[in-house]
């Protein structure tokens, strides 16, 4: 008999019972899915993006379905930091699963302030830094698509927080490895990727954009192969762990991410379709490890067999 494989994962000082989380913005703040999903079987809960003050987000339509995908321009509505701590954290503290809070700000200082305050808050185990949401911009660019502003955000958050910090990388950059390395150099404990891919859809009869915000971010199965390539490049550039997301629907999609270098994964859009996808992914990873005679997730991480150097086609 093969022993039960070790499914645990480490993100800085944080240890997870399994490597499968739920992605920010696709799981609310925890209670929304509590009737359907066994929260104690999740590796971690990553909550919807939080900034200092309450925000309203964009007008509807906020999402549109496209072939094998979903474009969203929710626009980061939320209860603000105090609202989150008051309304949701008591519930989350009662769940024995690590809570990763996705944070954002309109300025570098705001990122630092949210980080400092959550660092001092019980029940928050790590911070994921959302610099890559297509719906937040500094001037005309998201913070996460320019190396200089990306560095400033990560350095500022690092200076103000001792809990693990996880910058979340944007997919729409020319050199993802450079962002991964910058995150590591600025003291990040892990990186996560990918955020949604900037996208747009038009109603050809009315010639109007299908989203009130005109543009949004594509997620779901449509972006999975893009994410696999970016995770491979980013994870290969750093020693800190990589949390991979983008279009996971089945255990195979998650295993693909682990093989190209991810230490953990997050399920996003698929939860809307099948709320228990994360559970199925955990079960599928375990079964795969047994079938391949592997003792741990760590043995699978970065085990891609390539006969040649990466140079594309």
């Amino acid at each position, binding site marked *: 008999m093969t022993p039960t494989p070790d499914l645990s994962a480490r993100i800085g000082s944080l240890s997870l019972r399994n490597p499968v989380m739920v992605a920010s913005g696709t799981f*609310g703040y925890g209670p929304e899915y509590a009737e359907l999903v066994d929260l104690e079987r999740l590796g971690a809960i990553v909550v919807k993006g939080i900034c200092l003050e309450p925000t309203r*987000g964009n007008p509807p339509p906020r*999402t549109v379905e496209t072939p094998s995908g979903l474009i969203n321009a929710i626009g980061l509505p939320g209860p603000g930091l105090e609202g989150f701590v008051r309304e949701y954290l008591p519930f989350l503290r009662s769940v024995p699963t690590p809570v990763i809070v996705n944070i954002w700000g309109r300025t570098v200082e705001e990122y630092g302030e949210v980080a400092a305050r959550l660092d001092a808050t019980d029940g928050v185990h790590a911070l994921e830094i959302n610099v890559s949401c297509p719906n937040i911009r500094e001037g005309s660019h998201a913070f996460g698509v320019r190396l200089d502003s990306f560095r400033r955000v990560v350095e500022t958050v690092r200076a103000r927080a001792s809990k693990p910090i996880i910058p979340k990388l944007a997919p729409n950059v020319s050199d993802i490895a450079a962002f991964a390395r910058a995150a590591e150099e600025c003291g990040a404990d892990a990186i996560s990727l990918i955020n949604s891919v900037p996208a747009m859809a038009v109603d050809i009869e009315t010639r109007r954009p299908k989203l009130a915000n005109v543009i949004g971010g594509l997620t779901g199965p449509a972006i999975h192969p893009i994410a696999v390539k970016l995770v491979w490049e980013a994870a290969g550039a750093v020693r800190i762990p990589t949390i991979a997301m983008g279009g996971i629907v089945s255990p195979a999609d998650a295993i693909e991410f682990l093989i190209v270098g991810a230490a953990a994964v997050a399920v996003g859009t698929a*939860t*809307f379709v099948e709320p228990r996808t994360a559970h199925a992914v955990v079960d599928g990873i375990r079964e795969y490890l047994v079938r391949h005679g592997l003792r741990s997730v760590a043995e699978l991480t970065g085990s891609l067999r390539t006969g040649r150097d990466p140079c594309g086609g």
Partner: protein
Amino acid sequence: MRLENSTVIEQFADQGDYRRLVLHAPAIAPEVRPGQFVHMRLPAPADAILRRPFSVFRTHADMLEILYKPLGRGTRAMQRLSRGDAVGLLGPLGNGFPMPSPVTVPALVAGGYGMAALYLLARAVRRAGIVFVGGATASDILCVPEFKALGWEVRIATEDGSLGVRGLVTAPLDAWLAADLGDRRPELFACGPNPMLRAVGDRAIAGGWRAWLSVDRSMGCGVGACLTCVQKVRDPAAPDGWTWARVCREGPVFECRDIVWEDGE
């Protein structure tokens, strides 16, 4: 709220392009309250990934019936479902309609297949009321025999005059409010397009009655997590007096005074 693998008992054509789908859903069907909905996993095409929300037309023991019109890619694929096919259901979802106050005359107002969302309410009310239904043409006027079988009076309007009075559903509603009501108080329950809901709400506000409006918004998760389905509602504590409510959680039914309509709605 539950996840259930239901099976198709039967599917058949109703009038015009409308269809009825009858599912065996022993976990969900008995829990459905009037005005609630289910979020359905479509069989195909595989690239239409999201679930689709449907009002529950009626339930009977373990059976749950949906009335729909194939419009988009997803609902067109639903037409191919036949006896024995598996259908993933999530539900029941949403707040549903409150029961009418015992001192009011329940008046239901439907546009097209909005009728489907109102039948369970009519069945649950222990006294007969009146239903106003409007549509583009005669084949859009659905479920009339079902409401009549409950003893409800049905008044019809079609835009082309092919059935009932010519015009919008507000025409027979206004006539009834002006002439037949006497000193009784109506309580309005409506499901249909936004301009219709708004018109019903305006009448309720003018008359000092309550109107419960079931709002239709496109949805993602159906459980309150994705924040797709928002509707502007009054909130005196919020800036400018409004906030977003999630139609899938706080709705789909709102009292007309709580809704803040946008221009053109």
